[in-house]
């Protein structure tokens, strides 16, 4: 796996917020009946996190579980661990109608750090960023691409998009975070 690189290999921009590509992040799409105990168990085994409710993201010892749709979760784990997590979850859910796929490399992940991290995203996304709190996950768009974001803490937003548009997303966030662009709401 030494050959593995993320789309922008940790690109960094410092404006009135800092924008950094988060490097390789393990991500797994899990589709299934989210009310099933077996799936809750598989999520717990994979991440240590509880089953998230609608619009929520939970955190455990090994990762996070985000609610993406009524039948879809996003599991965030170590990049290197992702294939094994897929294997284990597939095995434990063999009798359950479900789909578990590794999408780690289909994505790019960015951290927007700073007191105004919500404001930077609000320049690009129609979501109400002011109501976002740690523990919430929002699927939305930034400018012309689909994206999702959540807050790690009050000053760190994590934004996920497709890998092929990583450069566009980074340029967008950097432009929004450029000094002089402070809105101050």
């Amino acid at each position, binding site marked *: 796996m030494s050959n593995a*690189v993320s789309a922008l290999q940790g690109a960094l921009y410092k404006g009135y917020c800092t924008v950094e590509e988060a490097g390789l992040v393990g991500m797994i799409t899990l589709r299934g009946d989210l009310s099933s105990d077996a799936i809750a168990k598989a999520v717990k085994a994979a991440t240590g996190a509880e089953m998230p409710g609608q619009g929520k993201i939970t955190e455990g010892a090994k990762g996070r579980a985000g609610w993406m749709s009524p039948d879809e979760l996003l599991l965030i784990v170590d990049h290197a661990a992702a294939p094994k997590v897929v294997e284990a979850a597939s095995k434990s859910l063999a009798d359950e109608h479900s*789909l578990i*796929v590794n999408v780690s*490399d289909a994505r790019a992940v960015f951290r927007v750090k700073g007191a105004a991290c919500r404001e930077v995203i609000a320049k690009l996304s129609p979501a109400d960023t002011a109501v976002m709190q740690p523990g919430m996950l929002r699927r939305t768009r930034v400018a012309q691409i689909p994206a999702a974001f959540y807050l790690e803490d009050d000053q760190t937003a994590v934004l996920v998009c497709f890998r092929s*548009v990583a450069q*566009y997303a980074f340029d967008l966030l950097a*432009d929004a975070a450029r000094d002089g662009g402070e*809105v101050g709401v």
Partner: protein
Amino acid sequence: MSTRLAKGGRLIDRTKPKNFTFNGKRMKGYDGDTLAAALLGEDQMLVGRSFKYHRPRGIVASGAEEPNALVNMGQGGRFEPNQRVTTTELFDGLTCTSQNHWPSLEFDVGVVNNYAARFLPAGFYYKTFMAPAPAWKHVFEPIIRKSAGLGKVPTEADVDRYEHFYHHTDVLVIGGGVAGLAAALAAGRSGAKVLVMEQTHHWGGRAPVDGGEIDGQTPDDWITATLAELEGMDNVTLRTRMMGAGVYDHGYALGYERVADHTPGDDRPRHRLWRIRAKQIVTATGAIERPLSFAGNDIPGVMLASAVRDYAVNWGVSVGDRTVVVTNNDDAYRTALVLKEAGLDVPVILDARDHSNGPLAEAARAAGIRVEVGKAIAKVNGGKRVTGVSICSQAGEGSAVEDIACDAVAMSGGWSPVVHLWSHCGGKLIWDDKQSHFRPDPDRAPTGHDGQSFVVTAGAASGAMSLADVLSDAYAAGQQAAKAAGGKAVRKAGPKADPEATQPMAPVWIMPQGAGHQKRMKMWLDYQNDVKVSDVQLAAREGYESVEHTKRYTTLGMATDQGKLSNINGLAILSDALGQPIPATGTTTFRPPYTPISFGAIVGEARHELFQPIRRTPMHKWHEDAGAYMEPVGHWRRPYCYAKPGETNEQAVHREVLNTREKLGLLDASTLGKLIVKGPDAGKFMDMMYTNMMSNLAVGKCRYGLMCSENGFLSDDGVVARIDEDTWLCHTTSGGADHIYAWMEEWLQTEWWDWKVYVANVTEQLAQVAVVGPNARKLLEKLGGMDVSKDALAFMQWKDGKIGEFDARVYRISFSGELSYEIAVPASQGRAFWDKLLEAGEEFGVMPYGTECLHIMRAEKGFIMIGDETDGTVIPQDLGLNWAISKKKEDFLGKRAQQRSHMSDPDRWKLVGLETLDGSVLPDGAYAVEDGENQYGHRNMIGRVTSTYYSPTLKKGIAMGLVKHGPDRMGDVLSFPTVDGSNTEIKARICDPVFFDKDGEKQNV
């Protein structure tokens, strides 16, 4: 002449002078000035020329309603035409030039139109340009193009940056005058989240100019105290320099924030477009004063009375030493009193009403000002500036009884509420006879999804005309909005002012009321577009009844100011000419934006690199570094070919084809769509999505499949692999991945919601490389790992394993006719894998190839391409793909449609190969013709070229096309007329579309 007064000017700081230039002339103003105030302070009364007659134009207003004073602003990358000087803040180093004149503002040749004005009435263009047709191209259009327009078109790219900002709020208050502040106070006190926006850089609107007392304080003191209270509320956001541009469905509103117009070059975004979702919107947008229609009302120096007052009080600027005030209402008396107090002369107040005894009139008389009632202006004297007025009786035809010298005229025809934002989303108006204006009808407000009102007006925008009424209306509006948005009821009382006694205004639409044609031809309604009272009357005589038609015929209200001053006066004239009451005529439609907003603000960040997202594969940078010529495929950029130094793209493509056929080629196929379909019902689902049978595909095997729309048309194709008992992997076209994924989800979510199938789009998870050519196996064997021999991995099979150190899934599939492996590795390792293949393949003659090489190779093999052989009207049967349409299956998407008579018509054009008799390349899209003409007189057409290339392998042109009865006409020669003007035809013979290796021996080794 206009000048800066020695004292006064509540908005300027005289210790901070600002230098600027107008038409190259150095001028000086002060911090806090608008450009209009600074120009007037320097006696620049003439600021431009009108659109049609090139009449001299001066500043007429003091705010957003200004029709005349537009200038070319800035230079180079900051040049922008048609900027209103009344809404432009002065800054040091500002440069501007006047518009629409040649050679100079003072001496303009175009003014000849003015003398020909009698020949250029309303509808002149429509009447003149009817015929003859060639005259339009050769005579009219060149002339109009030369004379049209106001400012110049920028010649350099905009150097500033712009951005959007999304904001959600309970209550949005548009307007920061005392009404807006009172409404914000009510809403803020309720605990609702409030955003207040004010288009100028100062709060309070015109209340401080007009005077009065609020809660026992001066308006200025009350504004300061109120702002302090609002700033202390966490739930209230205050923004200046931000205009409410538009109100749309569902509480959506646009705010146009001019962040850095007054500080150019400071690296802040110039404009920020706020895209706001509000539960409730309060429009506290004030009112606009109406001009009066008298002869010569457009001469520089004739201004709105309120503007004259604003310039004196706000900026310490006198518009003239001697100002005649002409009015039909009490409010204009305030202007006379302000001027008198500033030590200026008001020779007379002409009041068109037949008596005048309100408190303001009495105060004017007490100040020693001569007041003439029942009097009017017969005409204004002067050319480029006012020199005097002739006065007459309002009731008569305009015989002058007295000439009075003056250098300014302050006019007031009453006030119209700014109803634009209320009206944008469907708010209706009612005619107020007492005030002679349209005002919002609170019973017919714009309504949201729940049928409830989401806009409420406040203050003068509601039609409240006294300070006391404005405050009580606005506070109530704020309370109402906050309550509707879910806020708590507010107990605390709102601000109050004492009621004032006023004498009712009298509607005056023409001055004097019996003015003859000569005078009416000099009464301007629309200053910018040169529409006069006589033009509207002419339109009515010519049969125009609808106000919307009259607007377009006369161009009334069609200028950049959208008729803020002219609309009501114009439709009053039209109503009079049609002999009907004004409300029967109605208004034209109010559309956003309220005043023009910049294209930059609309575009936001979407410029340059951010214009559009470009999708990049993990190997993208390698392609760029290799100098690949890239082409767009959907949002992807893919290498078309990799030209070497000294090579043309065409030569590069030919080299790539031959090298791949003879040695080894690599294609970055990562853009191919990859969808995983899994579940107990996945086989059933796959059989519905594809025309051929997919449920019986054995695990470990691949099958080429076709997908059709429900109307039977071929929409996508690709190779499907069976991964395990209930999992399939579908390859789609590069451009089709997202669409096909959505297509599958739609059927699963809306039609077959009870089928147990999940789909995931893993297109970007995998980098995919096609290793193609006779040496393909040698390269993979060199790298080691899994067995890729013919026996271990036969044609149309796939296997998971290692290629070298890489985890890979290898498909033995071929789109080129060569021995070919498509290898998928995790995208994070795609670049490393690509590098490894190139390095290890060197000894086997490896070269990367691009999309054009791919196209040629597939055409040589007769493989179709979605988008070339298909165009949304082609069914698989047209392409001879019947073998891929299952006859066993009960159903699949498109099956029924393909049984329709038109779809099974034997006359449908069908796919064949085409080879020119002389070996040349057929033009793409060329049509095959036969003798005779169709019902439209067109040559009969019997086919067209869908793909055409020079084949470097076969050393001749090859093509595919759809031809009527084509497969039954093998060997026939068709004629393809050229469209290059040579009037020649190319002859091509119908042949098998498979030009190369018909038996597939090369790929099956």
